[in-house]
């Protein structure tokens, strides 16, 4: 691993943020995805949505300026930009299920090269599974991007030909940002858009269970 520089978590979030155009309605999942918002400059207006009916979130509040009635789906305190609005849970998920979100960014355990995503349970018989809004977001948003480490801590591939963990949704991931590469999910499978500096396709493939392609 010493012959190349992995992308940091901040860089992964930056890569994703750079690809979000002004005017998109975007839901960011818990974890690294939430950090994407920090890398979208305020003058590029992107409208961030949270499942609990909050639309138009701004930067995190200063500690002495917390509004206790304003949290996101991760139960963190948030702010609203001018132009923000509130709706109830059914209307909020109507936005999601009705295909009104341009983008959802989630973390994942595994992504398959047909776009399947597994991000909510690590075994078929988790004692008390917890899904939250992930299935609605994955199935409902116009496009789903994933930010995750390229492999597990023990080195197992997370970009796979078939997910072994329980699915969150089928055939919906369009792009994956990892600490090693950015990849599109296409009809051919994973197509590499960018790699960490110094990394070769062979090295990347060695850390990827699914077959990788270069863009034509």
């Amino acid at each position: 691993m010493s012959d190349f520089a992995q992308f940091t978590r901040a860089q992964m979030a930056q890569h994703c943020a750079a690809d979000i155009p002004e005017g998109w309605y975007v839901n960011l999942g818990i974890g690294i995805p939430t950090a994407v918002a920090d890398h979208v400059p305020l003058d590029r207006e992107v409208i961030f949505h949270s499942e609990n009916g909050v639309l138009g979130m701004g930067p995190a509040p200063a500690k002495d300026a917390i509004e206790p009635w304003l949290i996101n789906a991760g139960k963190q305190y948030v702010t609203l930009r001018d132009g923000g609005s509130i709706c109830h849970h059914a209307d909020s998920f109507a936005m999601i299920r009705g295909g009104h979100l341009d983008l959802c960014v989630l973390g994942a355990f595994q992504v398959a090269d047909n776009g399947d995503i597994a991000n909510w349970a690590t075994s078929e018989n988790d004692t008390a599974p917890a899904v939250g809004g992930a299935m609605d977001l994955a199935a409902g948003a116009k496009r789903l991007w994933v930010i995750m480490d390229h492999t597990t801590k023990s080195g197992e591939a997370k970009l796979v030909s078939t997910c072994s963990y329980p699915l969150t949704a089928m055939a919906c991931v369009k792009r994956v940002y990892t600490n090693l590469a950015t990849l599109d999910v296409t009809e051919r499978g994973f197509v590499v858009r960018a790699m960490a500096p110094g990394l070769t396709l062979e090295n990347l493939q060695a850390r990827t269970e699914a077959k990788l392609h270069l863009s034509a």
Partner: protein
Amino acid sequence: MIDKIVQTMADAMAGIEDGATVLLAGFGSVGQPNQLIDGLIEQGAKDLTVAANNAGSGHVGLARLIELGRVRKIVCSFPRSSDPVAFETAYRAGTIELEIVPQGTIAERIRAAGAGVPQFFTATGVGTKMAVGKEHREIDGRMYIREDALYGDVGLVEAWEADRWGNLTYKLAGRNFNPIVAMASKLTIVQTQHVRPLGDIHPDHVHTPGIFVNRVLHIPYGDPGSF
């Protein structure tokens, strides 16, 4: 900077295609996007399917669109509003197709389209002509029929206030079908009486969040007329 406010009717109407399904909000003349309907007449799209509560009155607005032969099919609950002469003439001549839908069913079908619900069951219409040919299902001892989402390619909406993100409020009974038409349409076009600076509309008071709105045209016409 996001700015959904357009400056001309031509910009508001750009891209509406022949064969489109157009959802028209409004109930009576209150909260009805009359100027946008005139804009659609001017724009020229034809072979339209129009869903609205009524089928037009007199010789203006939707009635005029029908008289011009631009409406292939109308989906509505009550085509017998005051003076529906244009619709009735076309209907008798067999030049327009009518799909009659109970008012609550048309509202729920539009809402379902906006909410990503392609089919649902309702008790409304069971045992009536409305149920003929429809899927029936007994659920917990009561009979229901299946109804399908009613999607709009284009939605025409009238708001009281709007901002550049497309957040809307409505005034009193001007709300009616407007919020659900905005939800259910791929291209939602709004005429608004008032344009407000971003942030002027309190987040708790927004009726239609801008996510459901594509274009806003400022048309401060004042109070609705009689109907």
